[in-house]
């Protein structure tokens, strides 16, 4: 369930990248000089970072790390 939700979140963000709703307008100018289309894409980058935070928190491939650490510990003991 957790993985499905994360997959949907990734898919949603990918779709949100195609922001056709701001395609032909520069208004409003955020802070008086940043066109809305550029501001939206900057916010998108922040959202991408937050999504990565969720992926790291809830879908990190711990099993890969565990096995490597276990191997390294075994090798250290053998030495």
């Amino acid at each position, binding site marked *: 369930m957790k993985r499905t939700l994360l997959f949907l979140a990734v898919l949603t963000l990918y779709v949100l990248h195609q922001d056709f709703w701001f395609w032909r307008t*520069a208004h409003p100018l955020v802070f008086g000089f940043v066109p809305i289309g*550029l501001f939206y894409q900057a916010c998108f980058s*922040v959202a991408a970072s937050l999504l990565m935070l969720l992926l790291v928190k809830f879908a990190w491939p711990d099993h890969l790390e565990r096995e490597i650490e276990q191997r390294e510990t075994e090798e250290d003991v053998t030495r």
Partner: protein
Amino acid sequence: MIPAIFVFVYLAAVLYIGIFAFRQARGRERAEDYFLASRSLGPFVFLFSLFGTNMTAFAILGSSGHAFSNGIVTFGLMASSSGLVIPLTIFLIGTRVWALGKKFGFMTPVQMFRDRWECEHIGTAIFVVQAVLLVPYIIIGIMGGGTTLKVISGDLVPYWFGGAIVALVVMGYVFFGGMRGTAWVNTFQTVLFLLFGVIAIIVIGAGMGGFRSAANAMLASPALAPLLTRERISPLYFFSYTFIPLSAIAFPHILIFCLTAEKMNHFKKTVIFYPLCILAIWLPCVFLGVMANRVTDIPQVRAKQEARRVLATQGKTMEPEARDQLREQAAGDDVIMLLLQRYAPLWLAGLLGAGIMAAVMASDSQILALSTMFTEDIFAFYGGKRRFGEAVQVHTGRIFIVIITIVAYAVALRAPETIFELAIQYAFSGFAALSPLLVAALFWKGSTKWGALAVTLWTAAAVVAVAVFQHAVPAPAPGPPLVFWNLGGTEALSRTPGGTAVFGFMPVVPMVLVSALLMVVVSLVTRKPKQTTIAKYFGFSK
């Protein structure tokens, strides 16, 4: 000349970092230490060096130049899509490759493919395609270094001498420092990049008297207002661009870098902060590139705008050569340097010039990756390591670095830059089309070496086909594309002012999709690797 002095100080600093790394590694003449820094990079160096490795001259010069001509769309096209796709591929693919590298001792992607699919010469075919697609980067890096040093020094340093200095410095720290030196230099360069964006926007903003009036004046001008929207770019083209960042993880220098982390935990910060690093560098550069259109007191910028105007109004009636010449005049790759020269005090322009040099000199990782690939995938694989030992393998890698740098410098002196700029465009699509190799190797038990061969041959053929098509059919003037093949009323193949369109998409879309399809279809009808081999790759305990 003062800015050039800052740049020379910067060049001396990076050379020193490389030699310092060499001293640190003295007595450890092992291939894994030289080529992978003994897989021991910490989280900070890993994040910054991996990011720096992926940022080329395009990050500062190209992004602002593209934005100067095309407007704010540049950020969505190239930066924010990369901010989603690249960390995602590092999360999914980079971590797994790291684990397999630790487990089985791989140092290159081809080593992994050879073992995973029980293939020998198919691995060599993949090496050849990867190497051919990588070489233009090294050449363009030297060309960029020569050009930048020439501009920064006000023509006091000639192109040939600037190119030679940059080639020597890069060769020096890669030769001595190997991966450790390259990673440290990349970290230093990334810090400079990040500072560059912030300082440049403050200084130029103040010089222009604030951006508010510039933005409003652009909105009031019918010729410039579209640059603050995306109306000149089709949504299909915009969508196509999201396929390009798939190339990042397939670049050998990025994948090899993934093997250098000491712990898998170090990937966490990289994955989370990657989109923010892209934002910090690209947003100021894109914004400044757009705003450069409002600058009226820099004659070179006005000349570019005039060339753009002539191209738009009279381009259709011109000969292709004349159009290309105008395109070159209208190109804005140097606008950010012109803005700095105009608005920044001399000492600051020098400091920021060093930041630009940091971006231009991104060919270090490619040179090292090519050397790693040659010594591991060819020299060691065909018996060199067994016969001559590991120390000779490292020496061979160093000799290879010298040879490739000299060859790249010689080519950079003779060939026109545009050829290699085009080659890089093809290389992005080519590496994106190779990405199904990684997905199949890591996530699909049923994939086979014949599927891998089909993907490799298709990628090579598609890259050549696009290059031949674009060479044979000159780019039309700005406006509607030149339809080359119409299929039932649909534009199947067109030549656009910026490249090629297949059913309205950039070629990278069909290239990636056909690659994936070939991997599936060919693998389904060919023999799988042994069960023991598959178990090795899919046997991580859950």
